């Protein structure tokens, strides 16, 4: 081995990076070459001088703990951010569901009830019927004219009563359309006030006693009797309308009158 090659290999030799064959070659050269051996000794001296533990910088003891807690902190932050979705998911979903339920309930409660919608329809029909030439299809004060008129026009036969003796004279009958079905509208008159009585078969079996409502200044009374729904609407005051309804419901009165 020549000195030039030895110089190239002396560092990896010192650092233990040479394979065995090369190492032995360098070793042999160092035995023979005084100059290279001296250079190698210097390098070794330098190596031990630099690797002197006194040259190492020792970290302050507190740093270890600082790093530890910084890492733990980081870990917790990561944990929290990864957990946050799960931790809040259940309450969040519950909250959302509750909100939806609440809103639906409010909407449901605020929604006009079937009865309200019906009342609205009844009033609208009543108002429309009072417009020019809309009141009756069969103008007659004779219930024997009015009642048969509905035959063939409806799948039921509305009871028609003559209450003229009590001050409620029959004006006539009319086909109307309420609650998605054709209904019988019986028109009565009391002084200057018209009364519309809407009649159609009820879906429920039981009778329902009278309920009074006021819509747009009109009084309404609804009831179910003997398988028929009745809605009476008029601008009459409630007392007179009640009286009318009582008369209408009272079979004896009907017989009487």
């Amino acid at each position: 081995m020549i000195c030039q090659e030895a110089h190239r290999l002396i560092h990896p030799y010192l650092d233990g990076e040479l394979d065995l064959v090369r190492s032995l070659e360098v070793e042999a050269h160092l035995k023979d070459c005084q100059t290279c051996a001296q250079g190698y000794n210097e390098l070794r001296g330098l190596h031990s001088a630099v690797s002197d533990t006194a040259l190492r910088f020792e970290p302050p003891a507190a740093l270890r703990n600082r790093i530890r807690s910084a890492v733990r902190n980081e870990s917790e932050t990561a944990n929290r951010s990864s957990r946050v979705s799960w931790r809040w998911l259940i309450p969040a979903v519950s909250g959302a569901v509750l909100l939806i339920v609440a809103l639906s309930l409010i909407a449901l409660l605020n929604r006009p009830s079937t009865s309200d919608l019906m009342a609205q329809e009844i009033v609208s029909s009543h108002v429309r019927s009072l417009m020019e030439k809309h009141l009756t299809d069969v103008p007659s004060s004779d219930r024997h004219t009015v009642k048969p008129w509905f035959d063939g026009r409806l799948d039921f036969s509305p009871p028609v009563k003559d209450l003229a003796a009590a001050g409620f004279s029959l004006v006539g009958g009319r086909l109307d359309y309420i609650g998605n079905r054709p209904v019988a509208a019986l028109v009565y008159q009391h002084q200057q006030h018209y009364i519309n009585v809407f009649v159609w078969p009820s879906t429920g079996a039981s009778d329902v006693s009278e309920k009074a409502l006021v819509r747009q200044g009109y009084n309404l009374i609804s009831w179910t009797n003997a398988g028929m729904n009745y809605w009476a609407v008029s601008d009459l005051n409630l007392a007179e309308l009640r009286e009318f309804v009582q008369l209408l419901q009272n079979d004896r009165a009907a017989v009487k009158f």
Partner: protein
Amino acid sequence: MVQRGSCLQEENKTAQFEAIALPLFGAAYNLARWLVGDDQDAEDVVQEAYLRAFRFFGGYRGGDSRSWLLTIVRNTCYTWLQQNRSRELTDPIEDKLDEVESSTENPETLLLQTLDAQRVRQALEELPIEFREVLIMREMEDLSYKQISTIADLPVGTVMSRLARGRKRLRELLVSRMSKETLN
């Protein structure tokens, strides 16, 4: 379940990281201290490096943990130096071997017995960072050429030549200091 699972996973990860990275704390600090040149800055850099390492820990697939951690420490040091001491990072030095090969021509003998730690420390601090870092890694941390090449992102041949040149420069620095002292 998922919450507990991720929690355990995270705790596990932290414990694993601590088991692997904390024993290397001394080497990390020593390298950082030699690169940034200040106690407080080195502390900050090491802490930053550990946090980075923890974030990257998911990508650590076992193997040489020293190379892995010290790579991050070194990179953190260089980032810090670029931001705070950009003057220290001069143009990359040329890695040539011929400089080493002509090293026989230095007739002056290094008086090894006069090498005290203080002198060597000062000479090391004067070395350009490229030489200093390979010397620290090789002589103090006893890292192999392969490990140094990984950490410093250099070919093994460059590691070898930088070590040779670094040692030569260090030697020259020490010789010139001693001759100055002798003259005085």
